[in-house]
């Protein structure tokens, strides 16, 4: 996610150094003859450096392995600015992406927000070296959440209902203050002019949740597949005017590695993957059980009927 990429940058020099080091690894391995040695059936699956994306990469990889591909992994590569060039160079062949974020990364002026608009705009915005397959219905987008008590007290169901609440504070990453689909969007699309902003740089993580539960803030921007939303029975305000761009999970593929066999394998995953599944996978991997992403991925593939044993 674009926003998440930024919050990751904030985690500091260490993360950047790691990302650089990893790119160093991936590019050096490609220089040592990745293209020549690659058999038709070898696919390298990459991922960004956050756990949900790693699980998705594991799902893609295991689904491809089940279809007879030889799969290599380059997980936790880093932020979008690092792994997209790697994908364009063919250092990795497949990476799970989010439609809205990758669109705004490729086309800074993109205005599409609904699922269909984003998909068609993305097809146009993709460079000639890349191809996107079918998006899943699973989406991990920004969402505004309130506590059940606050929702009930103020009769809230959609974002627009906040207009009638006299005093409330919104917590989000600092970029939300200036992003077109942040506060400016809340003002222009929903006509909210009573926003008090509280920046918390953890991407809707534990500090944001704590502030919301403590009633220090009343509304929090939390990614829609974050387990804490379900765990704390938070009420996600609906977004009928599509302020937040659709963020469907979509396989992005290096064009030279694309094949109908690859496409059908990845589309089969997209056809089954729902937001609920993603939420459950995140709960397993990030929650108390700390399930290994590869194990969680395997369990999901089995339950979806994409893996026989």
């Amino acid at each position: 996610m674009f926003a998440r990429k930024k919050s990751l940058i904030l985690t500091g020099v260490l993360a950047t150094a790691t990302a650089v080091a990893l790119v160093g690894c991936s590019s050096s391995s490609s220089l040592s003859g990745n293209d020549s040695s690659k058999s038709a059936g070898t696919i390298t699956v990459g991922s960004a450096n956050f756990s949900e994306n790693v699980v998705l990469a594991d799902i893609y990889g295991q689904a491809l392995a089940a279809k007879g591909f030889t799969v290599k992994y380059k997980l936790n590569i880093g932020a979008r600015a690092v792994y997209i060039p790697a994908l364009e160079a063919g250092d990795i062949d497949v990476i799970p992406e989010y439609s809205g974020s990758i669109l705004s990364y490729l086309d800074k002026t993109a205005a599409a927000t609904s699922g269909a608009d984003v998909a068609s705009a993305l097809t146009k915005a993709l460079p000639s070296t890349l191809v996107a397959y079918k998006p899943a219905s699973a989406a991990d987008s920004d969402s505004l959440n309130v506590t059940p008590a606050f929702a009930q007290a103020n009769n809230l169901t959609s974002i627009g209902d906040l207009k009638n609440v006299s005093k409330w504070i919104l917590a989000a990453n600092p970029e939300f203050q200036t992003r077109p689909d942040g506060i400016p969007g809340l003002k222009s699309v929903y006509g909210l002019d009573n926003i008090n902003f509280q920046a918390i740089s953890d991407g809707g993580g534990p500090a944001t949740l704590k502030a919301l539960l403590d009633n220090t803030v009343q509304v929090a921007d939390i990614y829609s597949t974050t387990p804490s939303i379900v765990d704390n029975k938070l009420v996600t305000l609906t977004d009928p005017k599509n302020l937040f761009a659709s963020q469907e999970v979509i396989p992005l593929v290096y064009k030279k590695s694309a094949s109908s066999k690859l496409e059908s394998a990845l589309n089969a995953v997209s056809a089954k993957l729902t937001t609920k599944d993603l939420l459950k996978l995140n709960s397993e991997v990030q929650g108390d059980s700390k399930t290994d992403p590869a194990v969680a991925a395997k369990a999901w593939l089995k339950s979806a009927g994409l893996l026989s044993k």
Partner: protein
Amino acid sequence: MNIFAQGFQWIFTASHWTDVNGSAGIGAQILFHLQYTVIALFFVVIIAVPLGLLIGHTGKGRAVAITASNVSRALPTLGLLALLILVIGIGIVPTTIVLVILGIPPLLAGVYSGLESVDRQTIDAARAMGMTELQILFKVEVPLAMALLIGGLRAATLQIIATVAVAAVYGGNGLGRFVLDGIAQNDFAKAVGGAVLIIVLALVVDGLYAIIQRFAVPRGVSRGSVGRKHAARGGSIPVVATTRTPITEGQ
């Protein structure tokens, strides 16, 4: 344009002093920054000074104090803040706690090493004259150690001023707000502007301490040192000479 030039231009844009993206401007954030610093420093002083005086005067517990100081220096401020935020929640309390933990070691070291630097013969003489322990402490040791004491306070203040910026990570105010927001919003002029302002603020406060430190050395101490006659007439160079030795020891 050069990113640093952009940063300075951001600072010198008049409207930024009252309002930045609809939130507090530079003027208000400087006050917030100083407010966090002063609050933290208050607790640092009421904890570190009595403790340092006790250790320095009695000579007991020095090993424990040094170990505790070094251990607390090794604590990562941001990590500790993240932990406290999850326990206490966002606000000024967790920020103050991490800043106090950060500020105690330099001041504590300044106080007890200041007291230790006092010549034992001077203290023995005071005791022989019939001074009580408290009189020795406050009439002999503290005045003689004053330069090192202020030096410790100076180091603690600068560390805190430079570190208040982490408050912004979890929604706090202060000049760190501009750095964090600037990076997140791809507004690097703002980030550089904020960083420059923190540096300038630290240098200004350090300059104030340099002045205070000059006057912190009691007359009795400077009388005995070289160049005192010139200092009495208000010559500026000898004044530096009288304070230089203690400052160097304190650093």
